[in-house]
């Protein structure tokens, strides 16, 4: 099938790289969920496999089985995932802010409660990240 004989199948190499990339994203999300201190920072960790991992895996499937149906489904999966993941993240983040499920002392910037631009961007004391307890 390959016009150039490399001594190995190029699709195996692509599969290995993309599967390892997606697995690394999932592992990073798991570590982030355990280690990060509050809801908003865990939300940041959670989006890695939802977008990057799914994109790597679906591109992998499309590369190993290149046909019209597969590529159409792959594009549809990526489009719907990148439409729905930000919406749910926005809803969860808004609910976390409104019900005070976050650590106000480790926020860098809070434009929702500040009365003015200057107050929002005023310098504040932020504890070093290794002193923040998870």
């Amino acid at each position: 099938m390959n016009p150039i004989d490399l001594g190995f199948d190029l699709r195996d190499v692509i599969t290995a790289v993309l599967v390892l990339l997606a697995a690394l994203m999932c592992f990073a999300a798991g570590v982030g969920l355990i280690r990060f201190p509050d809801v908003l920072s865990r939300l940041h960790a959670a989006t890695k496999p939802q977008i990057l991992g799914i994109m790597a895996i679906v591109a992998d499937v499309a590369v190993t089985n290149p046909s019209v149906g597969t590529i159409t489904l792959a594009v549809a999966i990526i489009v719907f995932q990148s439409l729905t993941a930000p919406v749910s993240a926005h809803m969860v983040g808004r609910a976390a802010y409104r019900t005070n499920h976050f650590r106000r002392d480790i926020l860098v910037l809070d434009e929702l409660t500040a009365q003015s631009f200057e107050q929002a961007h005023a310098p504040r004391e932020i504890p070093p990240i290794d002193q923040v307890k998870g």
Partner: protein
Amino acid sequence: MIVVIIIAGLLFAAGAVGALWRIIRGPSALDRIIASDVLVATAMCAIGAEMAINRHTDTLPVLLGLALFGIVGSVSVARFLASRDDT
């Protein structure tokens, strides 16, 4: 290839265990819903990795369904939780 499969399986399992640990520990319902989203994303990645390694496309519609309806749980919980609840 077998080494890649073992390493990827271990990484997927570690990510899923991290998400499960956060689901169990909480402390709030929002942490749990974020962790369950991560668990769904990890399952999607594992399903797709199996498809890519074995070179078939049988479970690609499952991925499409999960990508379409994964939003329902987290949005409804966030919406339901927004007005009350102090856990």
